[in-house]
């Protein structure tokens, strides 16, 4: 197990390097000068020149990248061009928000997706199956920002049940924190739950038609035991992969949902940073997200081994 982890970590290093290089390059390809944005409405040319020197934007592209790599290796992610706040502080502020949103959305998604997936596989071709499929289709097709605004209009403005926006840290006020996150995590979960439902359904269908299930049924086991104990565990493999990958994506931030509910997570941070050409912030956040994604992949591999005993003793 340790060997697997060590190998994965080593493989991750060139991946991170490549990701940061690509993002750095893409940013430089973007039209727009960060200093025109920074110099404000007044655009004083002397100030622009000073800042260009200060942020080494006169240096060639590869030198700028090397400076950045050197700083990151010494633990310095730079400061936001827009607000002067260190990028490491920004990440430390936003990461808990994004993780909380991702965890809550994933819990919702699993609660929605797996039971409905199982049910629709068991009742294949019957009314519950069609109903579940219809719901899944709408879950994928309804845009998050629309659903978000409608929820705000109904739940916050009409019924005054939940706050329309904002974020309160869990440590400060746990109940208020859950209240603010309830709607956004549900909105995010609608699409994820639909994916999970579809995958659970097809995985279950595959397993349910296999020989050992027929044997289990023939032994006279209760249908519930057959489905939940014999079939589900085998069907879980692809679902675990999907869940961890979806979770990795959630860590990159949910741009539209965060925008609608004004949650200060990674998505909002990075979009804002791209618009203001805040290079250091984009780089730092992308690097952090890439680490998160790689970690989730590693977690998927470990979970495989835990779920599937056959993988525990590789040659």
């Amino acid at each position, binding site marked *: 197990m340790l060997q697997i982890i060590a190998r994965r970590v080593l493989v991750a290093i060139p991946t991170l390097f490549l990701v940061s290089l690509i993002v750095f390059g893409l940013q430089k390809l973007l039209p727009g000068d960060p200093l025109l944005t920074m110099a404000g409405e007044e655009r004083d040319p002397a100030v622009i020149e000073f800042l260009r020197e200060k942020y080494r934007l006169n240096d060639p592209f590869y030198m700028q990248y090397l400076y950045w790599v050197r700083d990151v290796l010494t633990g310095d992610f730079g400061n936001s061009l827009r607000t002067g706040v260190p990028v490491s502080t920004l990440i430390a502020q936003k990461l808990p928000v994004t993780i909380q949103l991702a965890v809550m959305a994933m819990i919702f998604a699993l609660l929605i997706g797996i039971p409905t997936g199982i049910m629709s596989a068991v009742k294949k071709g019957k009314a519950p199956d069609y109903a579940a499929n219809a719901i899944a289709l709408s879950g994928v097709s309804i845009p998050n920002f629309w659903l978000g605004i409608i929820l705000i209009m109904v739940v916050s403005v009409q019924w005054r049940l939940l706050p*329309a926006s*904002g974020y309160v840290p869990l440590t400060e006020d746990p109940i208020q924190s859950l209240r603010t996150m309830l709607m956004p995590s549900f909105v995010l979960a609608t699409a994820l739950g639909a994916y999970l439902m579809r995958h659970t359904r097809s995985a279950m269908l595959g397993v349910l038609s296999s020989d050992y299930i027929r044997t289990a049924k023939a032994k006279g086991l209760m249908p519930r035991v057959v489905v939940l104990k014999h079939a589900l565990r085998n069907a879980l493999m692809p679902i675990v992969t999907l869940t961890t990958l979806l979770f990795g994506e959630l860590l990159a931030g949910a741009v539209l949902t965060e925008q609608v509910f004004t949650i200060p997570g990674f998505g909002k941070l990075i979009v804002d940073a791209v618009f203001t050409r805040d290079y250091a912030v984009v780089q730092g956040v992308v690097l952090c997200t890439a680490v998160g994604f790689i970690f989730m992949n590693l977690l998927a591999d470990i979970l495989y081994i835990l779920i599937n005993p056959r993988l525990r003793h590789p040659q």
Partner: protein
Amino acid sequence: MKKLIISLLAGVAFSSAASATDFRIGLQEDPDVLDPHKARTFVGRIVFTSLCDKLVDVNSKLEFVPQLATEWSWSNENKTLTFKLRDDALFHDGTPFNAEAAKANLDRARTEPDSLRKSELASVDSVEVVDEYTVALNLKQADATLLAQLSDRAGMMLSPATFSGEVATNPVCSGPYKFASRVQNDRITLEKFAEYRDADDYHFDRLVFRPIPDSTVRLANLRSGDIDMLERLNPSDAESVRGDTSLQFMPVAGLGYQGLTINVGDNPRASGPLNKDKRVRQALQLAIGRDIINEVVGHGLFEPAQQPFPPASPFNSEKFPLVERDVEKAKALLKEAGHESVAFELTFGNNTTSSATNELIQAMAKEAGFEISLKPMEFAAMQQEMQAANHEATQIGWSGRVDPDGNIHQFVTCKGALNDSKYCNEEVDKLLNAARATPDVEERKQLYDQAQAILMDELPIIYIYHQPWPFVASNKVSGFEPSPDGMVRLKGVKLEN
């Protein structure tokens, strides 16, 4: 089980509400650095208004009123501006405000290499401490714009003891509220400064500024009670707000404008008939119905603009009345210039309001023979193209300044930093430079009138409308008076429970 879930949800739903003495303001954008000498955004100034006192302030009639300075006077042929300062002002760190502190701040704003106030204070030659509460500014030449600059960020005072610290992320000023915390893109929290001289007139313990960029969402937050006030309502929501008895709609005409900046310089993109021939630009102006834009896109909030100065300004001249839409006249002018039809590309920053405005302009101009192709761009990219003269015409605005110079000089003088139409006319330069150095309002207005007469003929910029500052507050808010500079002044403002 079902009951349990419902009661849990209800418990979650009804517990905890915001404390009564918080005042929460929804902003359209997240401000930038909180160092007044290096800050660049309009929205940041809204926060500074409660955080940092200035030497002078402006009232809702755009007159200068005392703030940190109690009185001021010009001497030495308008080359010396002397301020008498208050003796009871404290910075948030407890250090007193005095002439030394004022000098330290003005010198910082003038000399820091990345200070954005340098150009605003360019006329200042030296700052002199006369006595403990008197400071004099010696000027290189007379500068009529200086008082207006000092009524904004250039006149904001930081505690000199904190200059070496992290001013951008922890500003220490002398306003009625002091900086408490900031979570980027989420909130800026200020706390009441108990030792403030007028502390009794400020009724909130905490101010929370919340950037909520989507206008619909910002309004929904106001309606649900999650914020108490918002700035810059989207005009398309004006109708529904006017009809909502739980809200107060408080629009005020702003200091700025939106207009068409046409590239008339000596560069490859300025080679079309629109760029080369003023008659074509005059025809374009005749083809555009400013009142129609006001009605259709602005829902009555987009006051038609003919001049760069706001209608409330004494420099807005009656000599240049609004040019009404006249398609026949526009066609005739085009014909006189030798064209049946003129095609050009109109660039604009992509958002719903400017899309609607420009599509309307496109449709109206078509009737007169203009074939406009619209080019929506992301804002930062558009700025770069304009700076590089890589545009034919661009629809863009200016947030506006208290002093008229800020709305015209840098846009049309040959070396103006914001001269994106690349217009250059020595006569205009001469007039506008002279106006800068003329404190007398009447004399100054004459100069602006002469410059405007040339500009109205050559039309490097066609002004379209004055953008309003549509504030909306919950009807629990009382005592708020919106001002044309778009700032939120909280003296005397109360929130009923």
